[in-house]
């Protein structure tokens, strides 16, 4: 789960990390009130959306007066940024910036532990910098026994803060990093990112904030549940899937897929493409054999108006094929489906599944390629 900037900054402030003075608002009136009563001028109006590139899309703008705040906020609220409608803006103090740094704590798969990434060349071009000037990017592994190693951190500090710009002491920098890693572990995050980080009166300050939370850890953090419905750039189907605890991703094609297991679901999409078709979605119904999940899955894929054919690809293991078939039968009875269906089921109890599917008029293949080629054909026949 990705936290929006204002949410991440709430986490930052409770951990003692300095941010600009700022207020999240959802209306024009509140925006003006925030600027007038609390934040002052100049201030920055920042769209709160769960996608990157809002700056280039015009979602972050400086306002120098009441009129400008009103004018800019009215433009940003309701704006569409990469498919997300802006419903919230942050009215933020415009802080003097002498130099922009980049700083993040991120899970590093290779070393199996968090890593600190820091650069004296922060700002919107950091990814480009990392390619063209890799020597400007510094990395430091966090040690699970020692924490940060003093000797190593001192070297890092010298390299990063030796240039122009306002100075920060080593101990301030170190304690700032310790706060970040504390957030990382205590909140079960996989990324805590500040870009830009600035030095303000000798202190580190976060001008922006991004936190990615590990979904597996959310159960320990009820404090984030209030944000769940807030942070998604999801389609209608994706939202339905989340509520039904299914993993669904909307795609551009016209063959709806229902598969068990993420790897097999991806391989199914790849094979559809290989045979000239195009998948309408990624859908993993998971390892469970719960028929209700199948009913929900069917509802969701059928609600996509672009779909021309339905492909079912099940490899039973823990998943019992007859459970899937029963769920499908129940679903077909509840959801009116006008689309042609191609079905492949193999594995645990597949004979019983075949009998059930046949009973509702659906043929079952044991061969994945065959079923997929059929689904592709069906998707084109209708055109």
């Amino acid at each position, binding site marked *: 789960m990705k936290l929006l900037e204002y949410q991440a900054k709430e986490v930052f402030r409770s951990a003692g990390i300095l941010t600009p003075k700022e207020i999240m608002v959802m209306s024009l009136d509140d925006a003006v009130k925030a600027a007038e009563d609390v934040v002052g001028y100049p201030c920055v109006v920042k769209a709160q959306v769960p996608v990157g590139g809002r700056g280039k899309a015009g979602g972050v703008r400086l306002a120098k007066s009441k009129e400008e705040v009103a004018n800019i906020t009215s433009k940003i609220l309701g704006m569409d940024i990469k498919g997300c409608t802006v419903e919230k803006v942050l009215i933020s103090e415009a802080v003097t910036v002498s130099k922009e740094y980049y700083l993040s704590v991120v899970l590093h798969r290779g070393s199996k532990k968090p890593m600190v990434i820091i650069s004296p060349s922060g700002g919107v071009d950091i990814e480009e910098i990392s390619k063209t000037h890799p020597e400007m990017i510094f990395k430091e592994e966090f040690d699970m026994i020692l924490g940060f190693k003093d000797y190593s951190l001192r070297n890092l500090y010298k390299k990063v803060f030796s240039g122009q710009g306002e100075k920060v002491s080593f101990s301030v920098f170190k304690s700032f990093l310790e706060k970040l890693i504390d957030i990382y572990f205590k909140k079960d995050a996989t990324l805590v990112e500040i870009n830009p980080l600035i030095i303000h009166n000798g202190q580190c300050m976060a001008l922006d904030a991004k936190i990615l939370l590990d979904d597996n850890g959310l159960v320990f953090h009820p404090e984030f549940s209030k944000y769940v419905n807030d942070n998604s750039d999801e389609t209608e189907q994706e939202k339905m899937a989340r509520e039904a605890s299914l993993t669904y991703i909307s795609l551009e094609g016209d063959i709806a897929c229902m598969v068990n*297991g993420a*790897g097999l679901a991806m391989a199914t999409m790849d094979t559809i493409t290989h045979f000239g078709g195009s998948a309408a979605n990624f859908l993993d119904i998971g390892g469970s054999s719960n028929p209700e999940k199948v009913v929900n899955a069917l509802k969701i894929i059928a609600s996509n108006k672009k779909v021309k054919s339905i492909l079912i690809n099940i490899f039973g293991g823990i998943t019992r094929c007859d459970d899937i078939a029963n769920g499908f039968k129940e679903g077909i009875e509840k959801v009116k489906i006008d689309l042609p269906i191609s079905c492949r089921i193999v594995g645990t109890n597949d004979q019983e599944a075949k009998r059930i599917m046949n009973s509702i008029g659906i043929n079952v293949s044991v061969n994945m390629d065959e079923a997929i080629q059929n689904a592709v054909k069906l998707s084109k026949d209708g055109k």
Partner: protein
Amino acid sequence: MSILVDEKSKIVVQGITGRDGLFHTEKMVQYGTNVVAGVTPGKGGQLAYNVPVFNSVEESVKATGADTSIIYVPEKFAADAIVEAADAGVKLIVCITEGIPINQMVTVQAYLKTKPDIRLIGPNCPGLISPGKCKVGILPGDIFAKGNVGVVSRSGTLTYEVVYSITSSGLGESTCVGIGGDPIIGTNFIDTLKLFNEDPQTQSIVLIGEIGGDAEEKAAEYIKKNIKKRVVGFIAGVTAPPEKRMGHAGAIISQGKGTAASKVEALEEVGVRVAKIPSQIPELLK
């Protein structure tokens, strides 16, 4: 031969009295796996599918000499279960459980680093099987046949699909290892490739990867330097939308790796034959 598990492996099932634990204990025993013990705290002394249950892994190891543990306990307790198994002295720990918080695994991995003799497979994996000898996991036993193809995979059902097509083509498997799909896993592609390379029964290797991370790219480097046997690959996700990005940090770390294209290219560059679709794998093995 075969790798990691065989007819001599003595298995202890952690969480044996749970729904999944009990179901798969039955399947493993039916397959012929030597399941010697189960563990559920507070249920010591009971029998679960005729397997004696102990209160702790330590007790089970002392009583039965179990050397391999398989973990079916719920995600909230699974990381601790790995630690318990490691402390009790089993040599191979297979963690099936899905949904363990990543940073709990970060901590467990740091701990396991202090115990270099202990190997973890998973978490969030289907386990492993040496056909005809021993099944430690949830893989459907009947799709496997004893043979000379070593299979290693990050995926679950996709592995079954590939094995199904290998076995259907008349070939068989030496060992099939599902290493798991989580960002932080124990045994990785390289560890498994090394074992397959040294295993006389294994004549060729199938590597099943997917988008995300750079495990396949690293495996390719390793294959170039060390593997003498034929390797066939498949990467799932060629047509998948790009993985959700880990902020700028993700881009800085990955530097373009992690896509299916990058992985396919890396593998093909070192002579691995990469299948376009799973059904092509058997012919590439021949």
